């Protein structure tokens, strides 16, 4: 298990959920790495196209994934984004959250790839 100090993510909840099964953890990490960029892309794309419904749906799906992967600094922003998208708010707050989300996830992806090079 890689050390997770100073990381923007934590696998504690995931391990609580599925147990310390190395193969299963790798499988989940792999799913995270393949599905999360798609959801992020849908959010960014939806915002650009002013399709706030698409933003809301993707944010809704991303919410439990970020919780499970312990991306704690996005815990409240992703919920706020869902609310803003629901009320079709495409203002600065929405834009800022999406930017933060993009930057945070870039870091998370990088860190996970470093910690799990074999995945």
């Amino acid at each position, binding site marked *: 298990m890689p050390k997770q100090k100073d990381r923007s993510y934590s696998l504690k909840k995931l391990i609580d*959920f599925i147990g310390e099964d190395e193969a299963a953890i790798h*499988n989940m990490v792999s799913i995270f790495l393949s*599905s999360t960029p798609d959801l992020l892309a849908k959010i960014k794309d939806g915002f650009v196209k002013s399709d706030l419904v698409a933003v809301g*749906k993707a944010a809704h*799906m991303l*919410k*439990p*994934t970020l*919780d499970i992967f312990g991306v704690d600094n996005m815990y409240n922003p992703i919920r706020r984004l869902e609310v803003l998208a629901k009320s079709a708010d495409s203002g600065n707050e929405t834009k800022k959250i999406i930017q933060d989300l993009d930057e945070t996830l870039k870091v998370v992806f990088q860190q996970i790839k470093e910690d799990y090079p074999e995945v």
Partner: protein
Amino acid sequence: MESFRIFIVEDDALYGEMLKHHLSLNPDNEVHLYKTGSDCLKHLYKNPNLISLDYSLPDMSGLDVMRAIKKENSDVPVVIVSGQEDISTAVALLREGAYDYFVKDDDTKDRLWNVIKKIRENLQLRSEISYLKEEIGRKYEFRNVIKGNSPAIKQIFGLIEKSIKSNISVSITGETGTGKELVAKAIHYNSPRAKKPFVAINVSAVPRDLIESEMFGHEKGAFTGAVTRKIGKFEQAQGGTIFLDEIGEMDLNMQTKLLRVLQERELTRVGGNDLIKIDARVIVATNRILADEVQKGNFREDLYYRLLGLPIELPPLRYRGNDIIILAKYFTDEFCADNKMPKLSITESAQQKLMKYPFPGNVRELRAVMELAAVLTDIDHIDESHISFNSTDSAGSFLMEENTLEGYTRKIIRYYLQKHNNNVLLVAKKLDIGKSTIYRMIKEKQI
């Protein structure tokens, strides 16, 4: 126990895989993961024991999927696992029949685990209930419970067979203790309604003021003391059979209400407004002659004809000849087995004593007599001395012994002498016979 089949319907790949992995940790679980509502619906033929359903799916809403599932199989529990913390959605889904609703959070896995545990316990209970129902059915296989091979009882077997092939109302008459409820149960548990409830109500045992509420139920606040809604016996018997014992004791006002329910096949609870459809077969029993009660104006003629249906008149035990011995042996064996006692035989003299007795209490009385005899004997058989009759209808049983006039006279004199400390003068005076007649009978050892 066979596998517990779980469907996870989840479009979030990560969450779906996590749930699948977690639930598969129990090797008894067989977990299937579907990403869309339509994919789940396509596989319902696999008969899942539980469906964990994400509320937000790409092709259908969770509500629509649940409705489609319930349409196909209304019994399968559906648990909604949603990212939505919306109370009104949760309430709407629970009203539509969801087993539970929880939001995806840290407790999800424990809650799901607990739900599975509860459902498995529930399934176990259901399977036990189903087994017990089959056992009851076997127990009430009528040739197993109604013993005897007399012509009178064979005729009853024929009528029971006819009654189980249709839904016709059945009216059972017979003296007390002839087994009216046993016959009603035999009809129910051998009929296509066997897996639904058999509900019995003794009309004479329920106070007049409560009978309507007992039969048809009541709404909360319908009358003083109605603190909760009560489901009546007719509703409890939905799909099954309702047995109205001692129907002849029902008052005329209630008879009118019963007639309406039987005609319309619907009822209204006391204090309620809603009409409730009723599908219950009716079997009634009475030890009165209902036709006479109609003549006397005590029983409604229209209700009489509606209830009469197939009449079954149970013969008194005294008219069933050798059935008395068959039943005596059956009750003795049953009592010995229940009390882990060795088997007991019944001597010829004991059998003769039983055959001579008129059994005013019928089969019920015979059972009590044989159980007492089995307790009284200290040896491996029951003889005459262990058989004692304690009928409350002593005058009736005295006359039904079929004695000669001289025999009756001797018995009467013996009884009076015992009662009056062998005071011959007093007995002669009371019976208005000559004292010399009594002395002669004593001398000749006739008494």
